[in-house]
Structures are given as structure tokens and as C-alpha cells.
């Protein structure tokens, strides 16, 4: 272009550099994200960096000045801290069992919901309640259910036939280390199950009925239809909710803190409660931050898998 115009003798038009070349056509977009970005930087990004710094210092609440001590906190946690080892074990058991049961009962519940025709709204509404109700308060309700003397569960086991004849209980649900972990997992399942049921239900609705009709014509049995059609088509939905649920189960705080505060004998401590106990209870912020940071690599891996899945769009077409 320029060559030809010069050849004719007309000066080449000056190419004006526009802001839009540098920042894209919608410069006002920065204005739209500015408030969110400021809040995120000040209250998420900065605190996160601070957490990383704390984890490498001997900071404690009320200290005049803190010193950089490198990886000492991490080395201490990994080599000398028995409670931390216990915490890792608890967290793995907690996450694996609660997610596993949520998946199994979630699929079963969603399949059942598919066949519900009457009282549909009422039933679906009731099932979702644990998810919307304030966790700390409903967990206090569970606390009563698990209380050694007032436990309705023990009362039920001891006074209602056939359990009364079996001589079961009374159990110290929150007093025995193994039972306490089981109880905490149980309450976590109670709270998380609705999310699984409703999301899997939406995933089931998205499966075209024609597939089942075709299978019927071919003479497929119910279980064949489940393993060959339902489950493979649910896979993307399952992948997303399992990852989501794993993150929030790993980082769970409320249920454990309200029910057991990590006890008895640290058998229910998760990263969150242990880091709370160290950082706030013992005032050792540096050590507490280091403990909670052990969550980060786990989260990071999950987030990366998740981003890949979400990008594949298929998952989000179900709504």
C-alpha cells in the first residue's frame, strides 16, 4: 500500500497507534474489573503472599518483630510433628470416604429422583435443605444427636426393638477416636450429599432419552443401560463435582471444629482445624500458616485439572 501511494507522490498516511491495538478493542473493560481486582489483590493475593512469608518466619501473635527462618517450620512439621502426621492421615480418610459415599449415594439418589412424579418439588426441596442451612448451627444439632448422655441415637439403639435386643451401645460417638472420625465423616456426607444429588440429577436430565430407547430396542437390561449409557455420559459431570467436593472437603473446618475441635487425641484434626489451633490457639501464626499451606499443592493440582475440564465446555451445557 505505502509503496504505491509514494510512487504516485502522495505521502503515506501516518499509521496512528491506537490504545486499542495495545489493550484490545474494549478498553473500558478495565473499569469493569477494577473494583473486583482491587478487592482480590488486597484481600486475597496479598494475604496469600503474606501466608507464604509467615510460613517462613517465626511470627506469632503479639510478637514485636519476626525473623525469617527459611524452611524451618516445614522441616519441623514434616519431621517432628506427630499431630501433623495424624492430621494428614485423618484428612486422607476424611476426604476419601466422604467423597466416595457422596458419589455412590448421590448417583443412587439422583436415579431415584428421576422416577419421582408426585410431590416432586417437596421431595427435592427437602433433600436440598442440609446444603442451604447454616452448617455450624445444623452441626450443633448433630452434636446433640451424638452427645453421650442425651444422644437420641443411643436412646434409639437401646429402647427400640430389634436393636434393644442386640445389646448395642451406648456409644461415645465423639469420645472414641475411630467413632469420632466416622461421625465427622457422616455429618460431612449429610451436608454434601444434596449437592451431588441435585447436580447428578441435572446431568441425568441432559442424557437424551433416545439413547435409552435405542438400548431398549436392542434388549439391554437395566444394569447394562446404567453401566454403558448412564455412567459414561455422567462422567464429565461427576469429574467436576468430585473435584469441587474434594477441595471443599479437604479444607473443611466448620463440622470438625463444632463437633470435636480436632479431638479426641487429635483423631479428627484436618488441616484447617490444626492450623487454627496452632495459629490462633497457640498464637504461632508462622507454624499455622505453614500447616495450612500444605493444602496448596493439592489444591493447585485439582484446580489445573478442573480448568481443563471446564474449558471442555461439555460439562456446562447441562444446565
Amino acid at each position, binding site marked *: 500500500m505505502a509503496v504505491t501511494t509514494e510512487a504516485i507522490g502522495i505521502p503515506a498516511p501516518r499509521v496512528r497507534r491506537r490504545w486499542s491495538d495495545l489493550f484490545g478493542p474494549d478498553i473500558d473493560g478495565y473499569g469493569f474489573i477494577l473494583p*473486583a481486582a482491587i478487592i482480590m489483590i488486597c484481600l486475597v493475593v496479598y494475604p496469600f503472599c503474606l501466608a507464604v512469608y509467615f510460613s517462613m518466619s517465626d511470627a506469632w501473635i503479639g510478637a514485636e518483630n519476626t525473623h525469617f527462618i527459611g524452611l524451618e517450620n516445614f522441616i519441623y512439621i514434616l519431621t517432628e510433628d506427630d499431630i501433623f502426621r495424624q492430621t494428614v492421615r485423618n484428612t486422607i480418610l476424611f476426604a476419601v470416604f466422604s467423597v466416595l459415599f457422596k458419589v455412590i449415594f448421590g448417583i443412587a439418589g439422583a436415579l431415584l429422583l428421576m422416577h419421582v412424579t408426585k410431590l416432586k418439588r417437596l421431595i427435592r426441596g427437602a433433600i436440598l435443605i442440609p446444603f442451604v442451612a447454616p452448617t455450624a448451627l445444623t452441626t450443633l444439632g448433630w452434636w446433640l444427636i451424638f452427645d453421650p448422655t442425651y444422644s437420641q441415637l443411643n436412646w434409639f439403639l437401646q429402647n427400640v426393638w430389634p436393636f434393644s435386643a442386640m445389646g448395642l451401645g451406648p456409644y461415645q460417638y465423639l469420645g472414641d477416636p475411630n467413632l469420632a472420625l466416622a461421625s465427622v465423616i457422616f455429618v460431612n456426607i449429610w451436608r454434601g450429599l444434596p449437592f451431588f444429588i441435585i447436580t447428578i440429577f441435572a446431568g441425568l436430565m441432559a442424557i437424551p432419552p433416545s439413547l435409552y430407547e435405542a438400548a431398549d430396542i436392542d434388549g439391554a437390561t437395566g444394569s447394562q443401560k446404567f453401566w454403558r449409557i448412564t455412567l459414561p455420559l455422567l462422567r464429565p459431570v461427576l469429574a467436576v463435582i468430585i473435584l469441587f467436593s474434594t477441595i471443599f472437603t479437604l479444607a473443611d*473446618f466448620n463440622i470438625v471444629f463444632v463437633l470435636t475441635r480436632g479431638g479426641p487425641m487429635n483423631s479428627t484434626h484436618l488441616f484447617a482445624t490444626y492450623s487454627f489451633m496452632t495459629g490462633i490457639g497457640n498464637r504461632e501464626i508462622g507454624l499455622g500458616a505453614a500447616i495450612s499451606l500444605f493444602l496448596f499443592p493439592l489444591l493447585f493440582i485439582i484446580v489445573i485439572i478442573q480448568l481443563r475440564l471446564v474449558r471442555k465446555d461439555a460439562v456446562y451445557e447441562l444446565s
Partner: protein
Amino acid sequence: MSSPDIALPAAPVARRAAPAAGSKVRINPTPPWQKRKRLATYAGVLPYVAFAVFPLYLMAVTSFKTTAEINDFSQSPFWVSGVTLSNYVYLAEKTNYFESWMLNTIIVSVVTTLISVSVGSLAAYALARLRFRGVEMFGVAVFITYLVPQTLLFLPLVDVINWIDQFIPIRDTYWVLIITYPTFLIPFVTWLLMGYFRTIPYEVEECAYVDGCGRLRALFRIVMPMAMPGLICAVLFSFTLSWNEFLYSLVFIQDQFAKTLSVGVFTELIRGDIYYWGSLMAACFAGTIPIVVLYAFFMDYYTSGLTAGAIK
């Protein structure tokens, strides 16, 4: 199912042979296998419903019992024989902080919801529609902050709050919560609304531009009204999440009167080794009911929000 005196055309009636007018004999009733299947379905669903409602039910029942009845182990704990409001009266009259917890919770939830939804919807619109350098990166950052749990942030935030406290006294007031709750609400709202904004066809907005609308005007007059279901959903979820929040409120507020419901009930109403189950359960029930009622009215929004964004 089909009543003979209303003339219903086609669909529902056509499935079965229509009964002759006046005849009481139903031809072709529901086949027994279908009945059995239906029975099996409801028998399977029942445990789910019972399991979900069980703790709330016990909470309610216990809250209406007298202390004597709670301590009476000879009768079934699953039912209340002498209904009493004494536990609620106790909360209202004998404790001077229960109302202030309720009030704090309402104020914090309303204000944080307003902040988060307005800030988040602007960001969501930019992410869904506008093209500028760094927008993709911002989207990923929002997603990551959405998934960074409070567990990682509460310790350093103590320090940040202490620093702010030097200039503006916010420590031990609900202002701390108003500042910190948006950190988990904004990413969530942004993520949720981004999906909604994407479903609105760009052509509609384009028409507004052709007619001489500016971007902001198009956003508020065209896009926002069309994304109303999404906005309602975002408001409901933000409100619920901040009403239910526990960790930040527990860590940042020590003052008895400045606490929110879920923390106050937990830290102040459990006194010593003797548990006052009646008033404790009454407080739990009173704190749960507003959210459950809200949910009962807007159930469809909750469900759509759940499946659209996949939430905690």
C-alpha cells in the same frame, strides 16, 4: 386421573382409553408393575428425605421441650409432649446478645451481598463480553481465588485487619466481616453470572448500541434485566453463604455483642459442662429458619444456581 366431567382434549386422556361418559369403571388402570415400581421409588426416596430433615427436626422438637422433659430418658426423645416456648423466651429476654447477633448477621449478610453482587456482576459482564488484554488471565484468576479456601487466608488476614485497625477501628465490629466476606463471594458471583451473561444473545445488546446507547446504559437497561434470574440467584447465594459463614467470624470477632449467629451460638450458649440443650437448640433453630424459609420461596433459583456454577 382424568375426570370425565371436564372435556380434556388429546394428550393426557389419549394415553388411556377414555372412559365412557358416566361409567365408573376405569378401563386400563395403572398396571401393577408400574404401581410396584412407584412404591419402590418412594420407599427408596423416603430414607433420603428423612436423613436430610432429621437433625433439623430434632433441633425443633428439642427446642420446644422443657428442661425436665429433655432430662427425662424414659420417654421417646423424638417427640415433644408438653410444648413450651420458654427456651425462646429465655433467648429473647434473659440473654441480651441474641438479638444483637441476629441483627449483626442480617446487616453483614445484606451489605456483603450488595457489595459482592454489584462488583461481581460488573466483572462478570467484562469477562463474558469484552475483549481486552488480560481478560482471560483475569478469568483464570477469579476461578482460582474462588477455589482458594478461607482456610489458607484466615491467618494472614488477622494481620491485615490489625494493620487496617491502626487507621480505622474495625476490629471486633461487624465491619471486619463486611470487608472480608466479599473475598469469597465476589469470585463466586462473578463465576455464576459470567455463565448467565453468556446466554444473552449479543444481537440484543448490539441493537441498543445502534440506537445510541452507551455501554453502561446497555448494561443496566438491556443486559441486567435479561439476566435477572441469574442476579436473583447470585443474591440468594451470597446472602446464604454470608449468613452461614463461620471461620472468619470466629477468628476476627471476640466481642460478645459483635458476633454473628452461627459463631455466637457456638461460643456463648455452650456454658460449662452442663449443656442447656433447650435454649441451644432454640437458638440453632431460630438461626436456621430464616434461610430455610428464604430457600423454600426461591427453591428453583437455588437449584439452577447449583447446577449452573457448581458451588461449595
